[in-house]
């Protein structure tokens, strides 16, 4: 039976982690490659990197990071942040990532999803989707609106309609981030997660709000998510991956343990 995945997410700027990641013995790491290696050894099922550098120079540095990660870990990893063309996607995949995550660029040009899926297969294309709760209206019937630019810009799209369209266009997976829950550590936005995961046939990764292992369990059970994205909950060594997996297993969820 397919395991539920736990996916640490690392933000990279100019080739370094934006915030240090703490491991056992208070080891504080700023190198994304070393942090990825640690998470790999601790039993992460996949790793996500977001490049938050915008410049062309930053992109070059980041591709170097991707290559070094690919030599260091032997689990799948995906890369997102500012990818806006099939050429960019190809660069990242050739550098060694399994998947690419596209967000704002797909909202601006939905065909980018189809073009990416045709060139590299659906399994390589993850739609990053930032959602914000809004009053239900004729244009936003599900009550969640798609936002871009890190949550700053609403685009007038209904989240459920956009998720379904992305699936039709060939996205292989949706990473669904709640802007409202993000950073709160109060738990994932379960209504949003189950609404989308219950309406599409592709896997949904819940993102935003994880503060305790119970939150992960909720997203993976009631929320129907296939995977959970984790950041603060693992980065400060409060809950090592193993502790999280043991907890999820104790609740009867299928997980991969080393």
């Amino acid at each position, binding site marked *: *039976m*397919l*395991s539920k*995945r736990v996916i640490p997410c690392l933000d990279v700027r100019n080739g370094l982690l934006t915030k240090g990641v703490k491991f056992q013995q208070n080891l504080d790491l700023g190198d994304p490659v070393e942090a990825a290696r640690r998470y*790999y050894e601790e039993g992460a*099922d996949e790793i996500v990197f977001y490049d938050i550098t915008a410049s062309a120079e930053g992109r070059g540095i980041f591709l170097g990071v991707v290559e070094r990660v*690919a*030599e260091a870990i*032997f*689990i*799948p990893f995906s890369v997102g942040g500012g990818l806006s063309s099939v050429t960019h996607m190809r660069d990242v995949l*050739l550098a*060694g990532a*399994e998947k690419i995550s596209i967000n704002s660029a797909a909202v601006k040009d939905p065909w980018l999803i189809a073009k990416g899926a045709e060139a590299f*297969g*659906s*399994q390589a294309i993850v739609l990053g989707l930032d959602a914000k709760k809004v009053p239900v209206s004729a244009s936003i019937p599900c009550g969640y609106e798609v936002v871009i630019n890190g949550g700053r810009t609403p685009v007038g799209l209904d989240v459920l309609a956009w998720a379904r369209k992305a699936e039709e266009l060939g996205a*292989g*997976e949706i990473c669904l981030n709640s802007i409202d829950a993000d950073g709160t550590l109060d738990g994932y936005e379960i209504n949003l997660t189950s609404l989308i995961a219950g309406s599409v*046939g*592709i*896997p949904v990764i819940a993102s935003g709000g994880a503060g305790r292992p119970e939150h992960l369990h909720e997203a993976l059970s009631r929320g*129907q998510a*296939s*995977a959970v994205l984790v950041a603060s909950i693992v980065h400060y060594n409060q809950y090592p991956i193993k502790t999280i997996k043991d907890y999820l297993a104790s609740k009867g969820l299928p997980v*991969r*343990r*080393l």
Partner: protein
Amino acid sequence: MLAIIDYQAGNQTSVKRALDHLQIESEVTSSPEALERADGLIFPGVGAAGQAMKALREGGLAERIKTLTKAGRPLLGICLGCQIMLDRSEENETETLGLLPGENLRFRKELEDCDGRPVRIPHMGWNTVKFIKKSPLWAGLQPSDQFYFVHGYYPSPAKELVMGLTWHGLEFCSVFGREGLWALQFHPEKSGPPGLTILKNFDDYCREVK
């Protein structure tokens, strides 16, 4: 030396990186001389069956692989490479290499998970394999070990070739073959330590039978 067969189908470099990490000498190649010289062949692949077969036929690689495996050269097929070893695939209704008897079928949308909900397709993520036949390739593995899968079609080989089973809405054959000719639906190069163990075991086998 292991030859990773290069037919422009995606994940050759991932396999190469895993072998480098294991300090196993390998070469990504389609040259007849290099394939002939290799102790064993790794047949990787990501993508669609139709396009892959077209590339294999055009380069004359299809015939070369058949000839080498008939002569007893060990081969390990991975993911699409594993599926292509059979006779045909529902994907693009393609006739494939036919190194072993069987076909590839599509996961049907009607399939249900343990909780009664439809399974998600493609089958993507970590899953267990119930190994039902002994092989030097799984030496050192534990029954709880999991492997990374990404696929929308699954192999259905002749019954006597089935070596491992995995559940995703139905029990499908995730590992098949016979001695010296093995096929893995999952990606050993992306399956952490147990996957690397299989690659290492394959190299050991190839050097022993050389």
